[in-house]
C-alpha cells in the first residue's frame, strides 16, 4: 500500500446499548479504490458517517491526510478534502443541476464565474452536461446519483466516499457508474465505497474491507475476500440475494 | 399574596388549562394525522361559539345541551373544509408546506370576514345559561361552575378520544394512517376518507370547546385569534401531533398563565406562557412529548 490517506484507529460507536462499530481500524492509501462491504446491519453506514463527520465516534480517532479530524464537523472535513454522497439521494430539489454543483464548488472559490466554470467542467465529466439547466427534482434516479457524485467532486476532494451509488441501478447504468468511478480515480482522487451487492464492486476495487457485526471481519484483494469462508458465512443469509 | 389566593389562582388555572387542552387537541390530531397545521383553528372555535350563541338566541337551547349539536355541526364543517379546501392544498407540487400554511390562513381571514358580514362585529354573550354566574366552594376555593363543567367535559372528551383511537376500527385506521399513509393505501383504506374524518373529529373537538367557552367568553368575529396562538403554543409545547401532549400542554399553559397573573400585571399574563414555550423548545426542540 502506498502512503496512507485515511486511517481509523480503534473506532467505537454505540447508540444506547447498541454497538454499531467496535474497535474498527482500517486504512485507505492514496490513489486506491477501496470497497467497504458486509451484510445488512454490519455497521458500514455508521463507519461511513463517522468518517464523513456526521457524528463523532464514541471512542477512537480518525486521521485524515496527517491530521486528527476526530472532533471536526462535516463542514471542516469537507474543507480538508473529504467528499461524500448519500445512500438516499439528497439533491437540492428546488435548484437546477448546475446550481447544485456550484454549491459544492464554492468551498474552493468565492468567485462566482470560477465556481460556475468548475461546475460545468464537473458536470461534463459526470455525463450530466446536457442536464445542467434542469431542476434537480426532474432528474431520473440514476442521474440523481451522478449529481451526488458531481456535487462531491466539485469540492475537489482527496477522498471520495460513495455510499451505495451503484445499488438499485440497471445493469447498463451500473456499468457506466463503474466507469465513472474509475475515471474519478484516474484524476488522482482516492475512493472509499460502501456497497451491499458484491458482484458490482469486486471487479472495480483494489482492496475490499469486510465488516460484520460492527467489526472488521477480513480485508484483502477482492478475489481472496470472496473466497474467504468467513465472508461466505457472514453473507450466507443474503447469499441467494447476492447471486440472484 | 396569601396561600389562599395562590391556591385559588392555581385551581382556576387548572380548569382553564383543561379547556385550553380541549381547544388545542383538534389541532394536534390533524397535525399528527397529516402534518398539516390548521391556521384557521381559532376561526373554527369562533364559528363553534357563534353556533352555540345562535342555538341559544333562536331556539333557547342551553349551551350544555347544545354541546353535541355544535360538535356534530363542526364535525361536518371540518370534514367539508378538508374535502373542499385542504385536499387541494395537499396536491400542490411546489412549496407544499407554505401552500398549506397560507391556504388555511386565507381561510381564517375569509371566515373572519364572513363572520363580520353575517354576524356583525358586535360582542355577544350568553348571559342567562343554566350554569352562568354560579360558583361552588370546594374546601374554601371558589370555582365558577361553567369552568368546572367545562373542565369535566374536557376530561370526558379526552377519555372518549383515547378510547376511540385505541379501541375502534376507525381509530386504528387513524393511527395507522398517521404512521404510514402510503402503506395504509395498500391495504385498501381510503386515505381521503380517513383524513376527512380526522378533520371532522378535530372540528367536533373544537366545537365542543366552543360550546363550553360560549358560556363565559364574549363572542365576536376576532375571538378565535386570541385563543389560536395559545392553542399553537399548547400543541407545540406538548410536541406536535401528540394528543396526550396537547392535554399536558393545556394544563401547563393554564397553570403558567395563572401563576404569571399572580406576579405580573394582568396585561402581561401571556408572557409567562410564551417564555415557558421558548424555554421548553430551547431545551427540547421537539416539545415535551414530541418524538418525531
Amino acid at each position, binding site marked *: 500500500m502506498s502512503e496512507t490517506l485515511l486511517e481509523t484507529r480503534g473506532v467505537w460507536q454505540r447508540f444506547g446499548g447498541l454497538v454499531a462499530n467496535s474497535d474498527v481500524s482500517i486504512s485507505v492509501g492514496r490513489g486506491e479504490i477501496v470497497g467497504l462491504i458486509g451484510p445488512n446491519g454490519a455497521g458500514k453506514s455508521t463507519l461511513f458517517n463517522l468518517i464523513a463527520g456526521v457524528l463523532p465516534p464514541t471512542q477512537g480517532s480518525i486521521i485524515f491526510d496527517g491530521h486528527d479530524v476526530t472532533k471536526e464537523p462535516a463542514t471542516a472535513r*469537507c474543507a480538508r478534502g473529504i467528499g461524500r454522497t448519500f445512500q438516499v439521494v439528497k439533491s437540492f430539489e428546488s435548484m437546477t443541476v448546475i446550481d447544485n454543483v456550484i454549491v459544492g464548488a464554492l468551498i474552493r472559490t468565492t468567485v462566482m464565474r470560477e465556481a460556475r466554470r468548475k461546475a*460545468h467542467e464537473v458536470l461534463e465529466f459526470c455525463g450530466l452536461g446536457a442536464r445542467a439547466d434542469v431542476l434537480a427534482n426532474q432528474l431520473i434516479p440514476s442521474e440523481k446519483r451522478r449529481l451526488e457524485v458531481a456535487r462531491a467532486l466539485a469540492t475537489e476532494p482527496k477522498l471520495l466516499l460513495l455510499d451505495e451509488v451503484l445499488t438499485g441501478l440497471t445493469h447498463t447504468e451500473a456499468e457506466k457508474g463503474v466507469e465513472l468511478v474509475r475515471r474519478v480515480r484516474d484524476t488522482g482522487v482516492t475512493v472509499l465505497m460502501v456497497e451491499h451487492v458484491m458482484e458490482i464492486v469486486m471487479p472495480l476495487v483494489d482492496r475490499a474491507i469486510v465488516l460484520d457485526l460492527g467489526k472488521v471481519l477480513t480485508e484483502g484483494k477482492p478475489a481472496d475476500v470472496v473466497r474467504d469462508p468467513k465472508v461466505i458465512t457472514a453473507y450466507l443469509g443474503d447469499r441467494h440475494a447476492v447471486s440472484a | 399574596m396569601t396561600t389562599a389566593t395562590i391556591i385559588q389562582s392555581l385551581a382556576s388555572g387548572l380548569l382553564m388549562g383543561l379547556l385550553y387542552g380541549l381547544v388545542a387537541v383538534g389541532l394536534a390530531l390533524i397535525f399528527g394525522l397529516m402534518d398539516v397545521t390548521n391556521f384557521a383553528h381559532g376561526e373554527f372555535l369562533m364559528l363553534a361559539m357563534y353556533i352555540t350563541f345562535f342555538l341559544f338566541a333562536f331556539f333557547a337551547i342551553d349551551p350544555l345541551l347544545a354541546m353535541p349539536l355544535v360538535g356534530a355541526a363542526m364535525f361536518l364543517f371540518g370534514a367539508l373544509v378538508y374535502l373542499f379546501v385542504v385536499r387541494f392544498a395537499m396536491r400542490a407540487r411546489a412549496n407544499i408546506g407554505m401552500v398549506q400554511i*397560507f391556504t388555511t390562513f386565507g381561510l381564517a381571514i375569509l371566515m373572519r*370576514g364572513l363572520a363580520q358580514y353575517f354576524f356583525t*362585529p358586535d360582542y355577544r354573550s350568553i348571559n342567562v345559561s343554566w350554569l352562568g354566574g354560579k360558583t361552588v366552594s370546594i374546601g374554601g376555593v371558589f370555582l365558577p361552575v361553567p369552568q368546572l363543567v367545562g373542565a369535566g367535559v374536557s376530561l370526558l372528551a379526552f377519555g372518549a378520544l383515547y378510547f376511540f383511537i385505541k379501541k375502534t376500527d376507525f381509530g386504528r385506521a387513524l393511527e395507522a394512517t398517521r404512521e404510514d399513509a402510503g402503506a395504509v393505501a395498500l391495504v385498501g383504506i381510503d386515505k381521503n376518507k380517513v383524513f376527512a374524518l380526522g378533520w371532522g373529529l378535530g372540528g367536533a373537538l373544537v366545537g365542543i370547546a366552543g360550546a363550553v367557552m360560549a358560556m363565559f367568553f364574549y363572542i365576536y368575529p376576532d375571538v378565535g385569534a386570541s385563543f389560536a396562538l395559545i392553542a399553537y403554543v399548547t400543541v*407545540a409545547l406538548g410536541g406536535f401531533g401528540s394528543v396526550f401532549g396537547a392535554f399536558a400542554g393545556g394544563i401547563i399553559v393554564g397553570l403558567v398563565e395563572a401563576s404569571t397573573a399572580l406576579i405580573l400585571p394582568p396585561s402581561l399574563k401571556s408572557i409567562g406562557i410564551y417564555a415557558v414555550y421558548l424555554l421548553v423548545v430551547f431545551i427540547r426542540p421537539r416539545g415535551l412529548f414530541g418524538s418525531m
Partner: protein
Amino acid sequence: MNDAHTKRRRRDLIVAAVLALLAACAPLVVKDVYIQNIMVLTLMYAALSQAWNILGGYCGQISLGHALYFGLGAYTTALLFTKFGVLPWFGMLGGGVLSALIALGLGYPTFRLRGHYFVIATIVIAEIALLLFLNWDWAGAALGIDIPVRGDSWAKFQFTRSKLPYFYFALAFCCVAFLITWWLEDSKWGYWWRAVKDNPDAAESLGVVVFNSKMGAAAVSAFLTAIGGAFYAQFVSYIDPDSVMTFQFSLLMALPAVLGGIGTLWGPVLGAAILIPLTELTRSYIGGSGRGVDLILYGTVIVVIALARPEGLIGLFSRKPAPKGVPQ
C-alpha cells in the same frame, strides 16, 4: 451556458431599471394623494417582503415574527428623535443595526428549531416584545409616540405638505432591497441559503456552515426590515405598539413574497404590487362599512392563489413549465 445565466441576470436589472423609472414618473400623472399613499405603502411592502424573502424564501426559515424588527426600527427612530433629538437618519441606521444584532442573538437558540416549532417561536418572540412595549412607560406604553412636527426637511425626514418625498424614499428603499437581493442571489450566500433550505445535511457535507448561513440571512433581513420600520414611523408620524408590532405586520411582510413567488427575486415585488393596493382599496371602499367584505375578498384571493399557483404568481411569467413533483 454561462452566457444564458449572465443574460438572465442582466435582463433582471434592465427590467428593474425600467420599472423604477416608470414608477419615478408616476407622480407626474397621479396627483391624487390617496393613490400616492397607496403607492408609498406598496413600495414599502415590496421592500419589506424582499427583506423577509432573504430569510424566509431563500434560506427557508419561515419567520412570522418580523413585526419585531419593523417595530424596533420604528421605535428606535422615534425614541431617539423625541427623547434626544437625534436625526431620523441616524435612528434608522441605529434601528437597523440593533435589529440585526437582536436577530443574531435570537438566532442562536431559535435556529436549532425546525418547522412549526421555529415558526411558532418567531410569533411568540414578537408577541413578547409587543407586550413589553405595551407596558413600557418610558416608550409611551400603549399610548405610543407622537413624532413632533419640526418643519419639512430632508434632514429631519419630515414632510407635511406633500407625500412625494416619502414616495421617492420608498422607491429608493425598494430599489436598494432589490439590488441587495439581486447581488446576494448570485453570491456564495445565495447558493448556501438555498442549499440550507433544500437539504441542510447535504449542504453540510459540501462545506456549507448551516448555522452561519442562517445567521447571515437573519441579520440582513432584520436590518432591512428595521429600515422599513423607521421609514414607516416618519411616514405616519405617530406610532404605538399596535400600529407597528402586531402579527398583522409579520403577515403583510410574508404574504407578498409567498403569493408572488417565495425564494424568487421578483416574487415580493409582484406580490406587493397586487396585494397591497387590493388590501388598501378594499379597506377604504368596501371595508369602511365594517362588514368584513374586505376580509372576505382578501381571504378568498389568498386561498385561490395558494391553491391555483402554489409556486406563486411569478409562475405565470416563466416560460418553463412548473416544476414537477418528485417521482415516488
